[in-house]
Each structure stands twice: as C-alpha cells, then as structure tokens.
C-alpha cells in the first residue's frame, strides 16, 4: 500500500518534472526577444574622429536585412538598433543605457572602440546584458571570470604582436627593432604584446616612437628610427600613417625588415596608395581575406560576400576592410542566435556564444576557425603570416596562435 502510494507520488513528480521540462525547452524569452523579433543594440562612431568605422555598422545592418529577407532566424526577424557615440565614452554610456533601458534590446553587439567598451563593460555586466563580440583588439575582453557577459571577436593586438615576436626570434634573433606606434590604447597594447612576446630578449627593441593621430606627418619619427640603427621596422599604425611610413622609407632609402600591423594590411587602402614598388617584401599577418586581393576572386566564401555587397549594400566598398569585418562578425552573431533556438534568454545567448565549435565565417582565411568555451572568450585566436609580393599578399608558414604564454600582462 505504502509502496503503491510512493509509486504514485513518484509518477506525479515525474509528470510535473517532464511537463515543466518540456515547457522550458519550448520557448523562453528575455527582454528584446519574442516570437517574431529579436532586438539587437549596437554602438558605433558614425561621427567624430573615428567615423570611418561607421561602415562596420552599416554593413551589419545590411547583413541583418539580408537575413530578414531570407526569413529571419528560426522565423524571427532581427531588429538592429544602432546608435552613434562619436567615439566618446560618456556618450557610449548614455547610448548603452538607452539601448538596455529604453529600447530593451536582448544584447549589445559589436560596440566599437576600447575606451567606449571599457566605459560600458561594468554597467552591462551588472545588468547581465551580453556585450557580445566587441569591436576592439584589446586583450582584456577575454576575462570570463570577472566579466562573464563580455566577449571579444578578433584576435587581440597582443596575440598578433606575439606572432611577430615569435617570427623575429626565429628568423632574426640579432635584429635591432625600431617601433613606430600610435599613442593610444591600440598602439600601447601592441607594444606591450611585443615586449611580452620577446620576453627576456626585449632589449632587441632599440627605439620606440609614438605619434598622435592629430599629427599631419610622421616623417621626423621615421628619420629618428632610422638614425637609431634599427634593421627591423615595426609599424603599429592605422592605414593613413602606415601608407605614409611605407612611402617615407622608400624616399630616405631605408630598407629594414618591415612589419605592418594587420590593421593596416589592406592592399587597396594602404599598399596601393603607398605604391606597390615601395611595398615589396613587407610582412604582416591576417585572419580575414582581403576584399581587394584578387587571389580570393574565385573563393566560394568571398563570392558570397561580393554577392551580398551587390544586392544589399551596393554603396559598400569591397576594398574596405571594415565591410569584410562587419560581414564576418554579423555572421558569427547569426550563428549564435541560431544555436539559441527558441530559448532566447540573455543567459543562453552567452552560453551559446561560449560554445562555438569550429565555426568558419565566409570571410576568414582558410583554416582559421572560431572556437570558444566557458573559459575561453577569445573567438579568433589564429593568424597567418604573409609577405607582399607583386600586387598581392602571399600567405606563408603555418596558421599560428598568438597565445605564447597564457599569462598576459593584464592578469
């Protein structure tokens, strides 16, 4: 009798358990998601000193239009709300709060700039709103223990610098390095990464020259670097200054081993204006395909990208690295949302973002894959070295990971 009662009770619990389980698996929403729509917030400088990056926001918008036109994600349309912060951290805080508290978005996606993201990181983590795939290469975004709601996307500047350090230690161990860097978070992070990567050989760096973006020309910095006797020139610069440096080196007849940061490796944006004859033999590294490089013309992934540009973003420039970037990162978000299925909660978004497995967006180099885990919030970690020859980059060597030592300086 008693056992019968128990069995009945067990059955009842089981019924309750399974039905509630089914309810859980059915549909679950946080603010910003519903049966028909997913609201996504974004903050990009459409105006101000960094307004060139506005293209990223426009590309993403166009990509989500494409997804919506093709039926959305699991039947839900994406509503992409993108605001301008003019690259000003206080404005970014205002816009982030507007997105979360007034527009009630599910998550904030690809907000741009290290200062702006630093400003909103604490707020978003306190509110438990995903700050997904931030558009900055700082290394501090991979910190799931302290900031479980923030995740980067591109390889960090530090890991890129590690790769060059590795290369130099192997190929030119007696080299004397002169570094030209932009005096901001990007340049400093890079420089730290380089020193970190060279470790006890960091005395190889014989000269460092920082420049401000407001300087009209960097000629005098380059002359000083030459005078230091350096035979390796590392250019941690943004496109305008990278092109200037390449030209200037040719003019003063200085031919060191020249490494250009990935930020400025665009054929159309940097090397062509600087002159192909001046650019021969320059080294860099990449994780994405270059839209201005003819070697990808018949690549199936890039063909999709070109078709997308033609149909949904005709004014977009395929030579601009920002369009390639925006496409790749938007595609990654769509993958995460697909994985979420019908459980569109903020927690599940982070869970799915942290369980990407060998995902390959169309625009990444062959062999470079996105992998994340609950302890690894750095989606892209690999890069491949490349050398400029003729009118295009030639990839060489293996696909390398920049995690030289996991203990980076920020920890």
């Amino acid at each position, binding site marked *: 009798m008693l056992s019968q009662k128990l069995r009945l009770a067990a059955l009842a619990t089981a019924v309750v358990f399974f039905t509630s389980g089914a309810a859980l698996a059915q549909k679950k929403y946080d603010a910003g998601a519903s049966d028909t729509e997913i609201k996504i917030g974004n903050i990009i400088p459409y105006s101000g000193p960094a307004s060139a990056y506005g293209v990223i926001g426009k590309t993403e918008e166009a990509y989500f239009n494409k997804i919506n036109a093709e039926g959305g994600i699991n039947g839900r349309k994406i509503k992409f709300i993108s605001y*301008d912060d003019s690259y000003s951290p*206080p404005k970014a805080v205002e816009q982030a709060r507007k997105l979360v508290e*007034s527009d009630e978005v599910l998550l904030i996606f690809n907000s741009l700039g290290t200062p702006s993201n630093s400003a909103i990181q604490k707020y978003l983590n306190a509110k438990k709103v995903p700050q997904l795939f931030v558009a900055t290469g700082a290394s*501090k975004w991979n910190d799931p223990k302290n900031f479980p709601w923030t995740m980067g996307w591109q390889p960090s500047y530090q890991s890129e610098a590690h790769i060059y350090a590795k290369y130099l230690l192997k190929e030119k161990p007696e080299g004397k390095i002169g570094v030209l860097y932009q005096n901001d978070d990007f340049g400093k992070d890079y420089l730290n990464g380089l020193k970190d990567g060279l470790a006890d050989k960091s005395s190889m760096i014989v000269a460092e020259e920082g420049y401000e973006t407001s300087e009209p020309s960097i000629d005098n910095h380059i002359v000083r670097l030459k005078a230091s006797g350096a035979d390796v020139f590392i250019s941690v610069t943004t496109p305008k200054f990278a092109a200037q440096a390449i030209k200037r080196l040719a003019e003063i007849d200085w031919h060191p081993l020249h490494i250009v940061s990935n930020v400025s490796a665009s054929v159309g944006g940097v090397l062509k204006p600087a002159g192909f004859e001046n650019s021969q033999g320059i080294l860099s590294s990449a994780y994405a395909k270059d839209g201005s490089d003819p070697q990808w013309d018949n690549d199936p992934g890039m063909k999709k990208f070109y078709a997308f540009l033609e149909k949904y973003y005709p004014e977009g420039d395929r030579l601009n690295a920002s369009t390639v970037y925006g496409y790749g990162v938007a595609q990654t978000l769509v993958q995460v949302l697909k994985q979420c299925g019908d459980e569109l909660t903020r927690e599940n978004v982070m869970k799915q973002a942290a369980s990407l497995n060998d995902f390959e967006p169309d625009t990444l180099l062959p062999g470079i894959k996105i992998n994340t885990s609950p302890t690894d919030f750095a989606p892209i970690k690999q890069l491949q070295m490349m050398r400029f020859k003729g009118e295009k980059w030639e990839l060489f060597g293996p696909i390398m990971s920049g995690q030289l030592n996991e203990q980076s300086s920020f920890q």
Partner: protein
Amino acid sequence: MSAAVEEVVTEAPAVEAVPKRAMTLGTGTSLTVLALLVVAPLFVKNFIIFQMTMLLVYGLAVLALNILTGGSGQFSLGQSAFYAIGAYTSAILMEQYNVNYVLTLPVSGALCFAAGFLFGQPALRLSGVYLALATFALATAMPQLLKLNFLEPWTGGVQGLVVTKPDAPFGLPMSQDMWLYYFTLVITIAIYIASVNLLRSRSGRAFMAIRDNEIAASAMGIDVALYKTLAFGVSAGITGVAGSLGAIVVQFVAPDSYTITLAIALFLGMVVGGVGWLPGSIVGSAFIIFVPNIAESISKGLSGAVFGVLLFLVIFAVPHGARQVAIVCQQALAKYKRR
C-alpha cells in the same frame, strides 16, 4: 591719446552688458523650475534620470564658462582640460586611495581653482582671440598629458579608470541613479546660488567692470590682474566639480572623454543658453546633450551636418540664445497681464 591706448588694450568680446537683475530668473519661475527638477525623476525611467544628471553636470560646466566669459569677458576653449582634471582627481582618489566620493568634490574644486588661477597668470597678457587660442592649446594638450607614461600608475594611461558607483546612503530606498541625481541637484543649486551672489557682489561688479572697459575699471581702483585670474580660478574650480560629478555618474574616465570636442560643446552650450545669463546654462546643456540625439534620429550618416543646420537655425533665429527667448516670453506675459 587715450583713444589710441584703448585701441591696443581692450579686447572686443561680443558680449552685451547685462543688467544685474536680468542675470537671473524671477523668484516664481525659479521655484517652478526647481519643483520640476525635484519631482520629475520620480516618474521616469533610470535611463532618463541618468540623462537628467548629465544635464545638470554639463549645466554646471557651462555655468562656469558663463562666469568667465559672461562675467569677466574672457574667452576660454580650454574648459575640457579643467573638467578632465576634476574627473581624474575624483577617479584617482576614489579608486586608488578609497576616498569617499563626496570628499573628492572639494579636492577637485580646490585643485582646479589653483590650476585655473595659475593658468590665468600668463593668460593676463593675452586677450580676445589670442586668449581663446591659448586655452585651446590647453584643451588639446590635456588628453596627451593624461596618457604620459609616468602618470600611468595613477591615471591608467590610455585604458582609463573605471569608477565605482556609490549607493544611496543611510539605506535610503532609491536607486543609485536617483540618489546621484539628487546629490548632483543639491550641489548644482548650491553652486548656482553662490555664482549668482558672486556676480552680484563687489567681486562680481569688478568682473563686469573689467569686461565692459578695462581701463575704466583700473581707474576705479580695481586690481585688474587679480580679478581676471580670480575669474579664471573660480570658473576652473566649478568646472572641476562638474568633471568630478561627471566621472562618478559615467563611472569611467579616459583621455578620449575629454578632448577639444568637449570644450567646444561647452562653449556652444554657453552661446545657445545666452552669454552672461546664468539660467541659460541649463538650456545650453540641454542643447548639447539632446540635439545631437535628435540629429542622429533624423539622419545617421549626416548627423554632424544636421546638427550644424540646427545650430545655425538657432543662432540665426535667436542670436542671444535662450535669454532672448526668455525676454520675449516675459514681455508677452506682461502684455497679457496688463490686459
């Protein structure tokens, strides 16, 4: 003879003489505005409260510039530098030395007063556009100074500093945002009243005498050099307090937050609010916070251009800013009453 000398010495600020009374609002209007500011946060979302707090913070900074330009007739495009000093002082004291946020405000104010007073010394030799240019240099230099390597242990270098947001004290049942709003409101009102009294005092009259005619002022026995630097110091001190509040509200300081763009925005706020009219500061502040948002909602790609057009319309329609609007309203009201 004197005419020739005067040609050399006097600057030509496009500032109209403001009668003392016209510098403030009437008691009735003031109380209405105050009541509105006190009650409004109870009915809106936290995000709006945050915006209103920023409105007060920028309002303070514009007010400070107003004292300098509207009061003593000196130009400054360098207010962002003092704002930055104030912000960093608070952030560093709070985060590195665990000082209570309330105590950081007077420190910022004093430090910025000193900085402004010292900067006022060389600025004495300059006037008009030359002074504007010198202060402009201060504003462009500041972000770079904050990035200096040897300051990095304190300033956090290019990465900036994250500031912890204070909770409401004494277990008051209100959100952090609302507490910060009322905290800022109290300080703003205190500084506003102090500023009005300052401009009505002996020193304020000295400021205005210098603004209107330096030679006449010195002939009356006013120590021109002292009062000019004093005006700089007071303005910088108030700007510093605004900067501190801004840092606490935004919870973050970085060199990129305090570029020349901020200085120009403050200058713009002063002009839109009406030069020399203290209540206009809050109107000017509203302009620099909300109009860019309006411009953005009209066109994302051309937000800068739209903002320019709106600004042009305002300057064209009401060249004396909010003060002009207020005067027109007042006259209309008087006419209505008489009927």
